[in-house]
């Protein structure tokens, strides 16, 4: 019985981060980058790399900030750390995938104030032990990444009728899906789908 506890906890970590408490679809956090930047699979992929590196490294480094420090100072330190983490990530982006990252525009540096860093880390991540915290951050970030790719895929395929250079045989395209309001509507429908699945799981169990 005792041996099952850690794995159950770990299952919950995966399930919560990816699904039950999904950053975008269930919690309504880090919405702007998805709406603005995940318009194609390629731009969603650039967003995923930028977001994952900035958030994971920032939360990891910020976890060493002493908890007895005044909260107002801690919150400034978190964003300063994020802004410093942004520098090597931007250099990396510039060196290897300049074209893809330039499509993010100002959304790239704006990732330093994302809600996982500003709010979720303080009220949730930093209350856990280090290993559990790293696992939770990883799966919350992964939850965001999965949504970004799905939204990018759905918007690209239905707005342009193509994925990258490959034209898909869709005769009825909805170009408005590439706009901000199109993004909100796609994310809203995906959030409803996730909620429906959760309701089905709950009623079955």
């Amino acid at each position, binding site marked *: 019985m005792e041996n099952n506890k850690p794995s159950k906890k770990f299952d919950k970590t995966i399930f919560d981060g990816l699904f039950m408490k999904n950053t975008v679809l269930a919690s309504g956090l880090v919405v702007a980058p998805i709406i603005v930047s995940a318009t194609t699979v390629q731009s969603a992929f650039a967003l995923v790399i930028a977001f994952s590196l900035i958030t994971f490294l920032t939360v990891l480094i910020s976890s060493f900030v002493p908890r007895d420090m005044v909260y107002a100072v801690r919150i400034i330190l978190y964003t300063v750390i994020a802004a410093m983490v942004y520098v090597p990530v931007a250099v990396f982006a510039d060196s290897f995938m300049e074209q893809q990252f330039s499509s993010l525009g100002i959304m790239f540096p704006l990732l330093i104030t994302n809600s996982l860093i500003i*709010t979720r880390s303080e009220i949730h991540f930093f209350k856990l032990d280090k290993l559990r915290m790293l696992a939770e951050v990883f799966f919350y970030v992964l939850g965001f990444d999965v949504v970004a790719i799905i939204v990018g895929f759905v918007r690209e395929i239905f707005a342009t009728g193509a994925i990258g250079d490959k034209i898909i045989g869709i005769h009825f395209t909805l170009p408005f899906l590439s*706009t*901000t309001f199109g993004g909100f509507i796609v994310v809203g429908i995906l959030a409803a789908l996730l909620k429906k699945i959760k309701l089905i799981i709950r009623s079955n169990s």
Partner: protein
Amino acid sequence: MDVIINAVLISLTAILIENTVFSKALGTSTLFLAARSKKQFFSFGLCITYFSVVSSALSYFADYFFKDNEYSYLFMPLIYVLIIGAVYTITLLVIWKLAYPFFLSIKKFIHVSAFNCAVLGALFTNALTEKSLIEYVAYALGTGLGFIIAAFLVTAVYERLYSEDISPSFRGLPITYIYVGILAMAFYGLSGGTIVI
């Protein structure tokens, strides 16, 4: 007179055409937080307006000094964060010292209203085009007021969005996204945009 008219036009553009939430989705998660309480959304919005305006005024000088530096894109986020951090710290100290009851009332959300995409986004958007100090401030003011309008429009129907009238799958966050999307579409139309289907 021209300066004032220009500033008003820039503010109106930031409120209606380039609304921080409806046209750029910036500060959406903060909006969801602010819209939860009818009492709190206005003070939340005012805090965002305050931080946008003061930080933008200071960022004008930072942009002026560093605009020609080829590596500015790397360190400007840090400079902006330090500016917002300084404004945030000084504001907290002043309010704590001079108006402690007010400090207690905004304590819960002041950190979120300082460090969010809407405030930082105003600073970055200002830097994209050549503007004067007054225009910087006018744009930031419009950003804050635009956020207040967006928060008002969501707060006004917040209870309905979570009511039993909405199907369980869409109730709450999903319908809120779609509602904000429809509002964003209306604002898009306001800016002269048309939808191609």
